[in-house]
Every structure is written in structure tokens, then in C-alpha cells.
């Protein structure tokens, strides 16, 4: 068994070192003989065992004797651990490729392939409830489909949802770093796959909370290309600029919107109720930060690489 475990370990180390490559070849020769039911005559096990026991002898005769006595059993244990680690590693690599995190979709535990956690980063929602959320206790069911262009409700996600097709719901805030990082990827997806697209502004800070109503009013006034251009420009603006309401209205004017209509709309009671309901609807999904995307109704948290969204859309 020692040659099996040694081969597994040395093969990996051999990628970086020619010395270990030679040892791996020796171990492989030993394996070849074992699997063909011949005794391993290379002395490989004895060499490895000799090195280990010798090293331990310098420190403790008792430990060396123990390792020598149970060498075969220990080799089995390490073999199983190695295989298990290999499986976990392969699964982790697959998860990273497929979901942007070694641990699977939306799992933000440490991932060695994304050590900074940039693929799982979110801007936490820290707006005091009384600023603009009359009731954010969660669980209060509201009518769905407020912005979505297809029959999708975010309530009680995901049990109540029917899987959609080529649908992209993007929940984020204009001033949030991770949402801003995600937006170019979303734009690329829109250009490539032309999904049914919904953007829900879900501010995490009070400074830009006012934008939710304005964006909705703009959408109602002109839901197509102009609205997408407006979203573009808002994402291109700095967070400081976005805190300035006049700056935003200048953009609206520039994009051909009737600013006075938008002002009236945004200040209306109807819009206030709409924003509150939409907020509640998003909260009911269990959101804890932005960005949150629903790609064909699958929730994706954090700025993932393009390939992750592509897999889901395809």
C-alpha cells in the first residue's frame, strides 16, 4: 500500500520537482508489479519506510517503533485521506469553475482558488428600518412580479418559484462596490443572450435610497433602450455624485426624460407604496447583501465570473 500512497503524493510533488518525479516513477513501477500480482521488488516501500523511521529515530525511538509497526495501517489511512482529499479538491475545482466558489453556489466559506472571496463578496444591507422601510420584519407576503417581465415572484424563494427561461433579475444598488463590479458582466450577458432583464434597485445605504423611485418612474416612462442607458450612466457615476439628487436629474434630462414628470412620479404616494412593497418582496427572498441575481430563477449572490452566469443561462 505504501507505493500507492507514495505514488499519489509523489505524482503531485513531481509536477514541481524532478527528484520527486523519479521517485514517483519508482512508485509506479512498484504499483505495476502489485496490480499484476507480482511482489514489488524495487525495495521502494523499504526505502520510504527507512527514511521515515530514520527521521523519527533522531527524535524518538518509541515513535519510530510505533510508525514502523503500524506502517501498513497508517499507509492505508493516508491513502484513504489522500483519495478523499483528491475527490474534495476535484469537486472544489469543479465548483469554482461552475459556481465561482470552491464550496458551491452562494457559499462564501474560504476558497483557496478565490482567497480574497471576491467572487462571493456582498455589500451588506445596513439601512435603519425606519428610514425607508416601514415594515421589513420579513415574512409579510406581498404581490410578486412588481418589476419582473415574466411571471416570477420572489416571495418565499425558491419553493414557490417556477423555473424560468432566459430570465435575469438583478438586485443591486448603484453605489455598492460589488454591484458595480457585477454590472459589466451583466451588460455582457444582456448583449450576448438577450435575456428578459429586470433590475431592482435595493439600496444598502440611505444616501441613494431615493433612486429606487426615480429609476422605477423612469422605467414606467420609457422602459426600453433609454432606461437601460440611464442604468448604464448611473452605474458609471461615482457614489458621491449619486448622493446628489440634482446630478441624477441632470442625467435624466440628458437622456431625454421629462424631469418634472419624474419628480412628481417619484414623490407620489403610489410610488412610495410601490417602493415599500418591492423592498418587502426582495427582503422576503432572504437577501443579506447585494448584488443578488436570479438567473433563470436560481439565486446567485456576489459578483461571479462571467462563465458562472453563462452556464446558468445556457
Amino acid at each position, binding site marked *: 500500500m505504501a507505493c500507492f500512497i507514495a505514488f499519489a503524493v509523489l505524482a503531485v510533488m513531481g509536477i514541481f520537482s524532478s527528484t520527486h518525479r523519479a521517485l514517483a516513477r519508482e512508485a509506479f513501477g512498484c504499483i505495476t508489479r502489485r496490480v499484476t500480482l507480482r511482489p514489488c521488488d524495487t*525495495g521502494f516501500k*523499504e*526505502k520510504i*519506510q*527507512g*527514511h521515515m*523511521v*530514520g*527521521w523519527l*529515530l*533522531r527524535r524518538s*525511538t518509541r515513535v*519510530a*517503533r510505533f510508525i*514502523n509497526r503500524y506502517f501498513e495501517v497508517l499507509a492505508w489511512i493516508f491513502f484513504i485521506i489522500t483519495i478523499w482529499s483528491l475527490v474534495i479538491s476535484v469537486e472544489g475545482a469543479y465548483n469554482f469553475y461552475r459556481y465561482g466558489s470552491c464550496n458551491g453556489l452562494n457559499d462564501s466559506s474560504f476558497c483557496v482558488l478565490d482567497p480574497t472571496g471576491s467572487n462571493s463578496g456582498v455589500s451588506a444591507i445596513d439601512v435603519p428600518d425606519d428610514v425607508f422601510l416601514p415594515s421589513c420584519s420579513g415574512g409579510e407576503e406581498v404581490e410578486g412580479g412588481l418589476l419582473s417581465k415574466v411571471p416570477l415572484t420572489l416571495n418565499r424563494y425558491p419553493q414557490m418559484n417556477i423555473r424560468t427561461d432566459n430570465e435575469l433579475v438583478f438586485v443591486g444598488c448603484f453605489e455598492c462596490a460589488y454591484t458595480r463590479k457585477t454590472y459589466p458582466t451583466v451588460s455582457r450577458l444582456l448583449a450576448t443572450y438577450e435575456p428578459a432583464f429586470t433590475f431592482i434597485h435595493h439600496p444598502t445605504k440611505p444616501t441613494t435610497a431615493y433612486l429606487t423611485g426615480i429609476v422605477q418612474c423612469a422605467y414606467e416612462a420609457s422602459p426600453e433602450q433609454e432606461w437601460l442607458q440611464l442604468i448604464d450612466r448611473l452605474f458609471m457615476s461615482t457614489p458621491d455624485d449619486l448622493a446628489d439628487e440634482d446630478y441624477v436629474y441632470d442625467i435624466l434630462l440628458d437622456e431625454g426624460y421629462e424631469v418634472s414628470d419624474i419628480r412628481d412620479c417619484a414623490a407620489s404616494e403610489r410610488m412610495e407604496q410601490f417602493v415599500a412593497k418591492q423592498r418587502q418582496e426582495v427582503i422576503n427572498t432572504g437577501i443579506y447583501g447585494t448584488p443578488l441575481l436570479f438567473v433563470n430563477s436560481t439565486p446567485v449572490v456576489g459578483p461571479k465570473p462571467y462563465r458562472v452566469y453563462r452556464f446558468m443561462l445556457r
Partner: protein
Amino acid sequence: MDTDRWRQDFPLLQTAKPLIYFDNACATLKPESVLQAMDTYNREFPTCGGRSVNRLGSRVTKAVQAARKVAARFVNAAHEDEIVFLRNTTEGINLLAHSLSLSEGDIILTTDKEHNSNLVPWQLAAKRTNAKHQVVRTQDDGTFSIDVYRAALASGSVKVVAMGMTSNLDGVSIPAQEVVSLAHEYGAVVVLDAAQAAPHQLLDVQKLEADFVVFSGHKLCGPSGTGVLYGTRAAWTTLQPFLVGGSTVSSTTYTEYELLQVPERFEAGLQDYAGIIGLAAAMEYVDLVGRDEIARHEHKLNAYATAQLEQLSGVTILGPTDPAERGGIVSFYIPTIDMHQIAITLDTASSVLVRSGQHCVHSWFHDRDIVGSVRLSFYLYNTTDEIDVCMAGLEKVIAVYS
């Protein structure tokens, strides 16, 4: 012998935690004088010898001539031109196995403890010429039986007697003088493999009267890739050319060639001049220490090691029980412990470097059905303190693996 004084000449023994090197039968460590001699060649005149007349080439030629003188003196050869430099003992024996005139029915005698280098070339030569290879078996304790040898000589037309003077397996030496004398009585050519003898005992080829004596440089403090083949002038004339080409001819036409005399005739191509110069320095160094002194020192160490080994449980020593008959080698095995594990563990745990395996004498181990052995082989720089460390390590090894 003032071992401490000689140890200072070996850079590898001057480190903070020097290794304990007991694999001298394979290759010895190199003293500073050898390293310097080779370094001087490589730095000051790293050019061709024997052909270029420029100042550097001439210096190489002179250095090689001087080395040949040293080698002749080392074995007490009557003439410098009886010395041929080559890569090692193996090459020397191959040269002889190819160049000696053998024919069907001729018998080649070796002992049953020959190193592969003094076995396989003769096996091949026998196959090639339809000669017969015959083994003279040693006694149960590994010592040479002159009676068995005499009987073998009398059994047929022995053409070649090729024997190791000292076995690298158990350190036992053959009675070389008597072997040669008897062989000549029967008209056989004698080839002595002195690889394990030349570094450890005075070698007087004139007294021995052997036809050919061959040994390597790396076992006597010299560089690897160097060796000496001595042959009497008369013996050289019986040989066919082996490797030919550059340096072996005085002139050629498109159809003919004119070979040079010995030794150049057998030194084809550009030689390892750094090695030859280093080898000469090594032979001078060994003689400075004194081979009689070295032999006495090794016998003392062997007796000391043997006494301690005999105290350890399960240890079987190969060869005669009297360490005086085993030169500087003690070879042993412990049936319950793998020999390589012993060697590796001694190395890793105690920094004691020994040899494990069948020591290129597979034939003997196969014949005796012994897996292999651990071999300690001593040289001029080894000490009893080192043996103490080795034996303490060995005790631990036995405690762990048994």
C-alpha cells in the same frame, strides 16, 4: 596512524557535522590535493595532450607523462609504458576480454565471488569465442582454496585466470602470488582485478609476475572515471587493438593504418586529463599516508567493528570469522530486516553511510540464496568513534525493526 591529521585533508570531513562514510569499497572521499590538481588542470591548461605542441598542449603531455610515472611507481612496474590509463577497472577487463586471443575449448577461470565487472566480460568472451568459463568455488567461510584452484587448472586447457585480488563482498584476499605462479605453470595468462587491493595494500607487479593488473582511481582517493591497466611488455604484445581512432595511430592512408606502441595504442581518443592528473595526485597521497599503514589501520577498525557486531542479536557476518582475513570490509545481514532499510535508516538517523544490496556480486548471493547484505568498508580517515556511532545506530535499527 594519525587519523586526525589525515582527516583534515578531506573537505567533506571538515563540516560542522561530518558524515560517517563507510562505503569506501565503492568510492572513497577525495583529499584536497586531488581536487587542487584537477582544478589546476581545468583552470591553467585545459587542453589536448599528446598532439598539440603549443605551450598548453605540451604542459598536458608532460603532466600525463608524469602521471604515468607515478602510476608505474605505485605498482612498481618495470617500465612506464606498461601503464595504460582508462576509465575504470571494468573498462580494463573488457579491454582484455576483447583483446586476448581466445578460441574454442579455452578455459577462463574466475572465482565464485567476482564482481560483475570481472564476470560478465568473460562470460561474453566465452560465448563469442566458444571458450569455457569456469568458476573456482571458495570455501564455506569465503576463503580461497588453492587445492580447488590447482585442480581446476589441471582439468583442462586454462587460457586465462581472471580473479579479484580482494573481494568487495567480504574483504577476503586471494593468495595472489601463488595464484599467478600456478597459472603460469599451466601456461595461463593472469588478470588480477586489484580494484579492492590497490588502495589498501602495497602492490608489486614485478614480484607478483601477473600479466595484467587493473584498478580504479575512485577507490583510492582519486576521481571517478579513471583507472589503470598494467601489463607486462610481453603481455601487451599479445593483445589485439580494442578501441582505436585518434591518438592510437601514427599514420593512416585511405586503406591502411599504423598503430602506435603501447600505451598510446590502447588509449583511444582524447583522454580525461583532469582525471589522470587527479589520479596521480591520489596515488601520491595514498603513498604519502602509506599503504602498509592504511592496511594496519583498516584491520584494527575491522576487528573493532566485528567485535561489536558480534554482540548484536541476529547479525550474520559474511566471510571468515577472523577480521584479519577480511581486510577493511565487514559485510553482514540480519535475516529479519531488509538490508536497504538498515542502510537508509542508518543514514537518516545517524548520518552513517553504508552500502546495502548485493554489491555487484549477484551471482554469489543467488548461489547462496541470500537476499543481500549491509557492508561497512573502511579507509584511512575512519575512526573507532565513528564505528561506535554506527553500532549505536544499528542497535536502534534492530530495536525498531525487529
